[in-house]
Each structure stands twice: as structure tokens, then as C-alpha cells.
């Protein structure tokens, strides 16, 4: 095993990179140095996080690489970080996507490069920190601190309605998370502990659980987002710069799902049992409704944003099935969606950089000029639809298998959503890629360049890898998920 604080190094390496960048003077010539510094810091973090995976003990369901220091003298708040099967891949997802984001912004971010890179590195630190926290207060601090860089990224480098979108994003998610703060304090008052590990032993009375559950729900339902709390998402996605959308879809939405697994399932099992019908209803409405809305979009990014809400509906169904297939499916769907939607946003970014529009109408027949682009786009599009052999299939399949144990209505709803997802994605693909070039402006559009290849090909490989060898990812998380399910069943059997 590793005897140095690996997790802390992973958390704070991007921040150290940010501090170094802070002291690089920005002008025309040196902005390239800033980009390289940011790229190296994030790549270093990614490589270190791979060590996390390689050294991971598959037979241990609880936290590994734990680090614990006393933080507050008066209360039991600790700086307590560690990784288990659930957070491992969330951390990997964050560290994998951030360097790609830096690369994706290499040439299209021209103003305030320094602030941009600072925001991204700070964002990476807080994202990893959030997934690695075992202390709830620490979790909360990271959870809210995410808002600061994201607010700046949308607000400074976003599109025309960026100010509206950034405020909506910030205030909406803040409203959810402050209620969680109250819930966290109530939990602490009842148990005198802030350890996620400890609190998973079910210590709350039934009525307390119901209130706590609602407070956590307010926060995570906004974050994931569930219908009807999703309205901030299309705005934020559309206005954010490409890399901002990538992180938003790739990692920030998963904070909601992660929170549901850790807090709602892990700590409030009886209340979860009570609220399962609510979640199922909302999820099915979300899947069907947002799929239909996605079908009607004219903006590519907005379409993908709505498809995210639908995919997250599958995730919430999977989580709240509370069985092995459901939870594994939800985790796989989160990882897969993190890769696929991130890649789709990057693909949109590729043509947006060239044409500066995201209107579907504008495009058509891109395959004539951009064959390579058409190919990678197809892989991700099929991944999003859930074609066997891609990552999307595994998640959706497992969730549906799990759902059969619960109720066939849920299966019908979820399956209907999957069909709809095929409809809107294929329709989108047909409209922008196939056909002949009808728009003269597209006549000399260039295919993807080397930098874009470097970004998109690793994503395409991992989407397929995930689809062919799902056990590579499922094995490490299996025991941790089993632990949560066992605790849940014990609590509800009482």
C-alpha cells in the first residue's frame, strides 16, 4: 500500500497548479505558459488518480487511503478523506475530463486565459475533494465551493445570455444546498458525528428521517437535476463555454447521484423506502417529458442538455431500486453519461468553433467534408442511445433488469425513454451529418485537427472499453454498493 497522503495530493495538486499560475504574468506571449502549466497540473492529477485505481483493493467495501486529521477543536469535524468503490470512478471521471477541458479551451478561450485556468483548476480541486470527503462538513464545503468557479466560467466566458444563466445556476443550486446545511447540522446534533461512514448505521427516528430526506432531496434533485427542478440546466449548458458544459454534464450532475447514494440510501433508509414512489414518478416523467422536449429543440446544445436530464432520470430510477443491478446500472450510467455527454458537448464545440452557431438548421451534410468527425460523433451518439457495445448500453440494461424486480410500469417508462432517446439522437445526427451540404458557408469547413483528435479519441476508446469490459469498472464498486444495500435492507427489515 501507499504510505503517503495520495488522496490529499490528488485533491490539492490542481490548487498548487493554480497558485503557480497566479504568479505567471499574463500577456500575449505568456498565455501559452499558463495553458501548459494548467495542462501539466491536470495531467499529473490524472496520472496520480490512476495509481488510486491500480492500487485499489477490490475486496474491501469501505474506505481506503484514509487520511484523518482533527480540524475543529470544539466539534467532531475532521479533515477526513478517502476513496471507496463508489467515489473511485467519480474521482477518475473528474481527473480524466479536466485535462480534456483544458485542451478543448486551448485556442477558443482568448480573453482572460489566466482567470479561466485558475477557475478550472480550483474547480477540479473542489470536485475531487467533494467526492473524496468522508466528513460531511468537508463534503458540504466542497459541494458549495463548486458554485464559485462555475459561476465565473459561465458568467465570464459564456454566450449572450450568460449573466442570466450564471445567476440562475448559482442561486438555484445554492437554494438547494443551504437546506442541506440545515439537515447536516441536525444530523450532527443527533449523533455528534460528521463521519459519513459512521452515519451510515441509521441513527435517526422515522420522522426525523423524513425531514432530513426532503432537505437532502432539495439539494441533490436540483443538482442532478430531476424534473421539475431541471430548468437551470438548459440555460447553464447553452450559455456555458464548451469546457464549462463538459464539466457541468460530465461531473457536476453526478454530484447529485453520488449524494443520493451516500446520503439518502446510506443514512436515511426508512425515509428512502417511503419516498421511492415519488422518485420513480418524477424520474419517469423526467425521462418521457424531457425526451419529448429534446425532440423539439433547434439548438444542438440544448438538445443534449435535455437528453442529460432524461439520462439522469435513468440514474435516479437505478439508484432508488436499491438492488444490485439497479445501483450498478446507475453507477455505470453515470460514468457513461459523464463520458458520452462530455464528448457530445466537445463535438458541438468543434463545429461551434468553426461556424459560431449551434442551430441545427444551419448544418447538414457534414459527413461530406468531415468524415472523421462524423465517425467519432457517431460513436458518442450511439453511446448516448445505448447501443450494445457502448457504455450507455450497460447502464441502461442493468437498470432495466433491476427494475423488473420492482415494477413493470417503471420498466415500460424507462424503456419508452430509451426509445425516445434513439429517436432524438438519430434525428439530430441525420440532420447535421447526413445529406448533402445545403449551406454554402459549410463548403470549406475543416475536419478535426490533431488537438481535437487528442481530445476525442481517448473518449471514444473509453466509451467502447466501458461497453465491452464493464467488469473493469463494476468489480471495484461492487462490494461498496453491496454494503449500502445490506445496510438498507437491515434498516428496513426492522
Amino acid at each position, binding site marked *: 500500500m501507499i504510505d503517503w497522503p495520495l488522496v490529499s495530493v490528488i485533491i490539492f495538486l490542481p490548487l498548487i497548479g493554480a497558485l503557480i499560475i497566479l504568479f505567471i504574468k499574463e500577456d500575449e506571449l505568456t498565455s501559452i505558459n499558463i495553458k501548459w502549466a494548467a495542462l501539466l497540473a491536470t495531467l499529473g492529477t490524472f496520472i496520480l488518480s490512476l495509481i488510486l485505481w491500480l492500487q485499489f483493493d477490490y475486496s474491501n467495501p469501505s474506505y481506503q487511503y484514509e487520511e484523518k486529521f482533527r*480540524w*475543529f*477543536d*470544539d*466539534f467532531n469535524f475532521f479533515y477526513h478523506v478517502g476513496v471507496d468503490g463508489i467515489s473511485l470512478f467519480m474521482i477518475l471521471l473528474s481527473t480524466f475530463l479536466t485535462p480534456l477541458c483544458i485542451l478543448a479551451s486551448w485556442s477558443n478561450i482568448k480573453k*482572460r486565459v489566466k*482567470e479561466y485556468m485558475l477557475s478550472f483548476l480550483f474547480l477540479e480541486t473542489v470536485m475531487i475533494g467533494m467526492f473524496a470527503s468522508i466528513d460531511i462538513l468537508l463534503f*458540504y*464545503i466542497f459541494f*458549495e*465551493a463548486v*458554485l*464559485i468557479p462555475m*459561476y*465565473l466560467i459561465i*458568467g*465570464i466566458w459564456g454566450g449572450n445570455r*450568460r*449573466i442570466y444563466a*450564471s*445567476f440562475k445556476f*448559482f*442561486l438555484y443550486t*445554492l*437554494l438547494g444546498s*443551504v*437546506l442541506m*446545511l*440545515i439537515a447536516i*447540522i*441536525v444530523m*450532527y*446534533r443527533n449523533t455528534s458525528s460528521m463521519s459519513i461512514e459512521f452515519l451510515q448505521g441509521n441513527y435517526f427516528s422515522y420522522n426525523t428521517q423524513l425531514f432530513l430526506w426532503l432537505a437532502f432531496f432539495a439539494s441533490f434533485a436540483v443538482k442532478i437535476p430531476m424534473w421539475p427542478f431541471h430548468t437551470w440546466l438548459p440555460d447553464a449548458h447553452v450559455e456555458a463555454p464548451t469546457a464549462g458544459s463538459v464539466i457541468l454534464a460530465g461531473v457536476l450532475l453526478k454530484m447529485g447521484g453520488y449524494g443520493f447514494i451516500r446520503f439518502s440510501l446510506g443514512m436515511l433508509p426508512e425515509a428512502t423506502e417511503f419516498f421511492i414512489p415519488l422518485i420513480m414518478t418524477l424520474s419517469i416523467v423526467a425521462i418521457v417529458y424531457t425526451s419529448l422536449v429534446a425532440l423539439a429543440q433547434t439548438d444542438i446544445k440544448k438538445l443534449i442538455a435535455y437528453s442529460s436530464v432524461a439520462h439522469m432520470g435513468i440514474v435516479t430510477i437505478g439508484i432508488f431500486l436499491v438492488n444490485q443491478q439497479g445501483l450498478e446500472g446507475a453507477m455505470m450510467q453515470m460514468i457513461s453519461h459523464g463520458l458520452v455527454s462530455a464528448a457530445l458537448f466537445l463535438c458541438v464545440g468543434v463545429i461551434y468553433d468553426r461556424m459560431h452557431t449551434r442551430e441545427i438548421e444551419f448544418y447538414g451534410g457534414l459527413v461530406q467534408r468531415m468524415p472523421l468527425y462524423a465517425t467519432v460523433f457517431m460513436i458518442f451518439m450511439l453511446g448516448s442511445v445505448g447501443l450494445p457495445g457502448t457504455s450507455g448500453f450497460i447502464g441502461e440494461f442493468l437498470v432495466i433488469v433491476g427494475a423488473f424486480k420492482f415494477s413493470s410500469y417503471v420498466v415500460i417508462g424507462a424503456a419508452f425513454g430509451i426509445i425516445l432517446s434513439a429517436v432524438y439522437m438519430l434525428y439530430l445526427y441525420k440532420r447535421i451529418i447526413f445529406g448533402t451540404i445545403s449551406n454554402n458557408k459549410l463548403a470549406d469547413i475543416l475536419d478535426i485537427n490533431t488537438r481535437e483528435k487528442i481530445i476525442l479519441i481517448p473518449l471514444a476508446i473509453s466509451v467502447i472499453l466501458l461497453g465491452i469490459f464493464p467488469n473493469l469498472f463494476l468489480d471495484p464498486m461492487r462490494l461498496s454498493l453491496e454494503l449500502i444495500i445490506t445496510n438498507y435492507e437491515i434498516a428496513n427489515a426492522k
Partner: protein
Amino acid sequence: MLNNIYNIFFIPEIFLACSSFVCLLFGLFLKKNAFRQTSNLAVFVLLLTILLVYYDNESNFANYKSLFSHSSFINFFKILALLGSIASIIISKDYFLGIKLKNFEIPILLLFSTLGMMLMIASNNLMSMYLAIELQSLSLYVAAAIKRDSISSAESGVKYFILGALSSGILLYGFSLIYGFTGSMNFDDISFYLSKYENLNLGLIFGLVFVMVGLAFKVSAVPFHMWTPDVYEGAPNSITGFFAIVPKIAAVALIYRFCLVPFENFYLEWSQIILFLSIASMFLGAIAAIAQSNIKRLLAYSSIGHIGYILIALVAANDDGIKAASIYMFSYMIMNVAIFAILLSLKVKNEYLINISDLKGLSKSNPIVSLSISIIMLSMAGIPPFIGFFGKFYVFIAAIEQELYVLSVLGVLASVISAFYYLRIIKIMYFDEIKSEGIINFQISFQSKIILSLSLFVIICFIFYPSLLINISASLTI
């Protein structure tokens, strides 16, 4: 016991009073640079007073037990007030010189008002409390109107005076009722007298309400807040800074002591009043600030909102509440010192910055300054990882300990509303397109720079070692 008569001069309050007179004489006989020299001397005197307060254990004030009290809570707030006072004198020096207001009386007035505040915090008797409040307020009335040739400054001084006098009158009437019905002015005696009764009689309730109204004026809690935005707006910026930072500390300490010492057994009676003041202040502070275009008015409403949060901890009325109040007050002081240190050094077209919209483009011309303002604003909004979050966090811990769930939820909702206007400042600095450049100057003296850097350091780095402050505030007894 005083073994030696000279020891009397080492009592912090007496030392401060005597040195203030020395400062006055010193300023009077200086021909050149009187303002600057007196300010420096005043800062030095205040520093010495901090030392005296720090080493002033039990012995001295015990002799004045009937009038003043002594506790760790009192000492903490005294030191806080002195620190705030030092910081605001240092950061305002250049501003006064910049607007050619070189009366050496200004630091002296602030010294006397600080003396009043120290007495306010320590007072243990209705009479000494009233006199201390008056000493503090009278100096501040003059300070608000110190820019004699400016109509707005004079107006703000007069407004402050009239409303302050009104509130003092109400306060005094409340005192007389309390004295009339309990037969004592001493906090401890009142407490002892009241402990014999189950219920307050009508006269005492009236007295309590009147005193609460008077104190609410002093802390500027809604609905007695009307003077705050006007006075903040009219007074010279540096005096506004002083208003925002220091008197609030003393007034909060006073309202805590008044509720928790003589009336501790009648929690139900006063907590309803404070509960209302708290909710009204949080929401009005959050909503009214949204429409402001003047940064000073905005900070006035922001301070009203902060008072609302501190009053939550008072409603909680437990040990955690006292702890929360001291942490919150500390963070409030630090954040205000930092923001005023910046505001007093920012010039737009050779005028000191007043309109929020003038901050436009600051992120281009002064990236470090705009980053600092953003951090302060996020901290004031209570977003982690900055110090403002921990202030609010402790307040809610105290409230939930007392099972005040509804109040806590209202509190966090108000904090979301208030986040809007703090974010708006960041939006103006970073998001808005810049039309013209280079009109904003940031000139800061070395001393203010130290103050600013120190307070920013505390705002950012509090999270890494919170125990330092928290251990102190956990040990406070009222």
C-alpha cells in the same frame, strides 16, 4: 485591591480616557501634520489599550462591580472593538488627507467613541450603560457631520442625532420603568429580583420593550433601521467605514448582555421580540439591498442583514449562541475592514468610488483588487470556504441546538436572496462589457495595505486553522 494608586492608570478605560486627552493636547500644539500625527498616536494608544485589556484579569474592575462587570465575553468584544477601531483609523487616514479634511479632532472623536463602546460592553448597570451609550453616540454624531461644508454630511449628522436622541429617550424611559418596578439599576440585582417571580408584570414588560426598541436602534435592526442607509450614505466614506465596523460590535455585545444577564429568566418575553427583529432584518437587508446603486447604501443593508443573523444566535440563547455571536462578529469585522480598506483607496475619475456601476472593468485594470472584492463578497454571502460561511454555520448550529428549525430555514433562505446582490457586484466587475478603460485608480498606503492583506489572509485561511478563534470563543462566558 489597588495596592498602588498609580495602578489606576493601568485600567484600560481610564488609560484610554487619559490618553485621549493627551492626544487632544498633542494635536492642539502641533503646527504641521497635526492630523497625521494624532492619528498615529491614536493608533498607538489603542494598541496599548488592547494590551491592557488582554492582561486585565479580574482585579481592577471588580472594584467597580456595581457599575461595570468583567468577563471573558466582555474582554473579547472589547478587543474586537479596539481592533476594529485601529483598523478603521489606519485605513481612513489617506482618505481624509485625500478629501482635504485634516481636522486632528477626528481621531480624537473616534477615540472617545471607542472609549464609550468599551464602557458600553462592560456596563453592568442601567445608568452606566446609558452614559456609555451617550458618550459613544455623541462622538459619532459629530463624526458623521465632520465634513462641515458638505450638505450631505451635515444632513447625515443631524439625522443620526435626531434619531439617536429619540432612541436614547425611549431607552431611558424603559430604564426608568425597569428601575421603578425592580428598585434597582444593577444588572445582578435586577436578575436576583426577577428570579423570585414567575411572570413579568406589565410595567416591566413595557420597560423591556422600550429598552429593546432603543437597543434595536443601536444595532440597526429592522424596523428601527431607517437611519442606517441615510447616515451611511451621507457621512464621509471613512466615517461610514467606522460606523459599519465598530459601533455594531459594541451594540451587539450590549444587547447580548442585556438579554442574557438581567433578563435571563424571562427568555420567552424577550426572545419573541428578538425573533421578529432577526427575521425582519435578514429579509429586509437581503431584499432592499438588491435595488441599491450606491455601494455605501448597499453595505448598510448588508450590515442590517448580518445583524439579523447575529440575533438568531441571541434567540438561541445558549453557549453555542455566544460562541456563534463572537465568531460571526469577528468575521463581520474582518470582512468590513477589508471591503472598506479597498473602497477608501478606489478612485474613479479622481472621485472616491460611490456608484456600484463604476466598478465596471475593474477586473481588467486591477485584477488583484477585483479578486479581493469578489472574495469578500462571497464571504459575506456565506459561501464556503471563506470565513463568512463559518460565522453563519455556527449561528445555525446554535439555532438548531435550541430546535429553532423554522428560524434556521428562514435564515438560509434569506442568505440565498442576499447572495444575489453580492453576486451582482462580482457580475459588474467581471461579466459586464467594458466601454472605456483606465478611469479607476487604486492607490493604497503601505499601512492600509498591511491591514487589507491581513484581513484577506484571515478571510481565506480561516478554514485551515479554525480552532484558533473557535477555542477562544468557546471559552467565553457572558
